[in-house]
């Protein structure tokens, strides 16, 4: 189809990776379009940074770190980058046509290069009762804080990881009471983690900050670590949390709200549906795209930067976005302008603490695969672990055959919630390591588009919306 507007570069996602890349490309003379599904720039880490910076009194509890994002977002606004927000990208074709939906209509735009900077999602935590009303993810709780400074008094936080401590810290600063924090990590990091401590110390500041959040959380909440066997229950909504404490004792807490978190994993649906090569990452227990040092994917005109290329945090997102943009600028025959000095070194330094953090917060498989066969794994189709076991016993070779037996992964979320769990279950049954099983074959649209939107696509024919 014909296109009214073409760009040198389309960037998907306006988090730190996308914003940093866009600024560099724009400065170097590329025409850049930014597509992002949120109302404004910021990504996950700096969500709502524009409005919240203007209202710092109310949102000050989010912390200094958060407001640093205002710098990037402000520069982006002042730049020549075209930004289309509330644009949900649902397909990238082989010839770099990007399809998206916005406010009930669909459109497409083409570019010479595409940079996927679409970030991460939280790792699903399928424990008994995780689908009960009153239970949500820590990230969702944090999103509410960032969007409207709202929260739930008396919630229980269950899980672990940097974002876990940060959000609780923000929750406390916002003045919400936290009933309890059940840390699934042990007090002392697993011995293996210390192999990585030296590089991590290069970023001692970051470690110290994490330590400080955790110390504050420990001091100000009823905190315990080494928690196992968490089970949520209640009549139609969450009422009770049972768990086994560090000493092996069964315990119970009454609560109406629980927030779960086991770290984040890259968003893979867009890239997989675009046909990029992905590889299982045993260190982070997730799929990540195969990228070269510039973020170039197996399709030479498509790049990936930020957490979508492997979890590494906001500062790495920035440097990886700049590295990718610099490469794209050069491939386009131009010279990067205002490239930060020692970019590669800084990128490397930013990444230094990651292996230590990965090892420290690596989720044991019982947080990935529920032991209890009655626990729902595929939320869209309401399938339990037991039902998936049964299908697996019929000898399915991988997730794609499984779909035909029991519809796992065929709902709205396109396996975002069950994919990795299903893969672990099939690995268990087949005796093969997870990395040897294929993943669900993902197909566009990666987000549901209505029949009406698609019908209008022919009529819009390339008009940007």
């Amino acid at each position, binding site marked *: 189809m014909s296109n009214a507007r073409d760009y040198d570069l389309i960037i998907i996602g306006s988090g730190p990776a996308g914003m940093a890349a866009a600024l560099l490309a724009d400065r170097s003379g590329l025409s850049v379009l930014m597509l992002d599904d949120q109302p404004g720039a910021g990504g996950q880490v700096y969500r709502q940074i524009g409005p919240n910076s203007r209202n710092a009194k109310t949102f000050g509890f989010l912390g200094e770190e958060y407001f640093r994002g205002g710098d990037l977002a402000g520069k982006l606004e002042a730049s020549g980058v075209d930004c289309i927000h509330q644009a949900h990208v649902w397909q990238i074709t082989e010839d770099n046509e990007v399809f998206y939906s916005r406010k009930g209509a669909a459109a*497409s735009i083409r570019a010479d290069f595409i940079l996927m900077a679409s970030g991460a999602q939280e790792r699903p935590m399928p424990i008994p009762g995780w689908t009960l009303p009153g239970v949500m993810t820590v990230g969702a709780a944090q999103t509410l804080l960032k969007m409207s400074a709202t929260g739930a008094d008396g919630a229980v936080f269950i899980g672990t990881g940097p974002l876990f401590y940060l959000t609780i810290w923000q929750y406390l600063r916002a003045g919400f009471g936290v009933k309890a924090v059940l840390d699934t990590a042990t007090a002392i990091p697993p011995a293996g983690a210390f192999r990585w401590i030296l590089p991590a110390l290069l970023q001692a500041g970051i470690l110290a900050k994490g330590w400080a959040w955790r110390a504050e959380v420990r001091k100000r909440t009823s905190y315990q670590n080494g928690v196992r066997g968490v089970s949520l229950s209640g009549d139609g909504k969450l009422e009770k949390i049972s768990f086994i404490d560090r000493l092996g004792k069964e315990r119970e807490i009454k609560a109406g709200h629980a927030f779960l978190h086991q770290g984040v994993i890259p968003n893979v649906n867009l890239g997989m549906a675009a046909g990029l090569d992905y590889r299982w990452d045993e260190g982070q227990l997730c799929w990540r795209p195969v990228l070269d040092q510039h973020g170039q994917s197996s399709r030479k005109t498509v790049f990936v930067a930020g957490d979508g290329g492997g979890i590494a945090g906001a500062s790495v997102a920035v440097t990886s976005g700049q590295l990718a943009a610099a490469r794209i600028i050069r491939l386009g025959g131009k010279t990067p302008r205002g490239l930060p000095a020692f970019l590669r070194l800084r990128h490397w330094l930013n990444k230094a603490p990651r292996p230590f953090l990965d090892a420290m917060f690596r989720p044991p498989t019982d947080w990935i695969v529920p032991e209890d066969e009655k626990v729902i794994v595929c939320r869209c189709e309401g399938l339990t672990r037991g039902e998936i076991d049964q299908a697996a016993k019929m000898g399915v070779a991988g997730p794609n055959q499984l779909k035909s037996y029991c519809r796992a992964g065929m709902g709205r979320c396109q396996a975002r919630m069950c994919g990795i769990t299903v893969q672990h279950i099939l690995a268990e049954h087949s005796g093969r390591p997870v990395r040897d099983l294929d993943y669900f074959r993902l197909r566009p649209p990666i987000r549901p588009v209505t029949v009406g939107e*698609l019908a209008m696509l022919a009529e819009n024919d390339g008009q940007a919306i």
Partner: protein
Amino acid sequence: MGRQSSERVVIVGGGIQGCAAAYFLARAGWSVTVLEKDNIGRHASGANAGGVRRLGRDLREVPLSLAAMDIWKDLPAYIGEEAAAAFHPSFYMKVAIDDKGHGLGLDRIRMLENAGYQHEIWLSKRELKKRLPQLEGPLLGGVLVEGDGWAVPWRIVRGFAKAALDHGAEILEGCQVVQFSRHSSGVWKIETATGSLESDWVVNCAGAWAARLARKAGDLDFPLSAHAPMLAITERRAPVLPAVLGVLGHTLSLKQLDTGQFLIGGGVRATADLETDKAGLKIPEMATSIRLACQLLPGISVAGILRCWSGIEGYMPDDLPVIGMGGLPGLVHGFGFSAHGFQLGPGVGEVLADLVIARQTKVSLKPFCPSRFG
């Protein structure tokens, strides 16, 4: 029939044609091996729209389609109750929404009547309104076939595979045929990625890859091309559409599955790559079919499309399959179904088996003659 050592047949391709042929041959006591490079039903046969229709068939294909339908109607007797439950007979309807379609429909009925067929009937505007009151838009009448319907393709293919296994066939998945040739002794030697085997007969049911396979043996050069027809499926909605629906003179096939999901197709094709087995997807090109669906059933425009996919299919220049003896003794072809071979499958399986066993079939295969392109 007692098994003799000479009754060995290798079937290349575990799609609907290969699995159905395996079933009929194994049932007749032959020693059958199916070689499938991926998994049973992995390609067109598992990815298709599941339309089980006699409606609209090329006149030359009608006898085969009717013969296949006799098997569909009695499916449990062939593949068992459980697998057969994946077939949902209802009725198939192609409506006319413009003068062109109206003309096409009437011509079609006349042509079929002249040829002595009565399975397709014309419904007037009024009869159509009565039959499908939920449809909107200018409706000028339509062609109807009672008893056509849809099936969950994958389950049907598995059903034939399992029935073949029950009759002693062997099915090897992940087993690609890389070379095969006929020895002076009259025996076929088949080299696969995992080993080699011998057989008296080879049946080529390799779908879109079949011409490549034929070339390996030094048989005819078939003008087979590969394309990837596309489909879209929506989330679940309340049931409103009991029939499978098409539009005369336009590309649309629309059905509502038992899950409540709508399946929208229409013959629009994306590219297919036989080297990598990758099937493309050109969603915008489906928009025309999708718009038509919205026009007929405006209610579905708010339904979210969950997924689109395509499957690799082999097409012949005349849109008719190749079914018959190859140019080399002991080689039989059954491929090139040009996007309408799912319904034919059980019938094709039967004629392929008859060809191998008795060199004759109850349906004439003349229109499908492998050498018709010289």
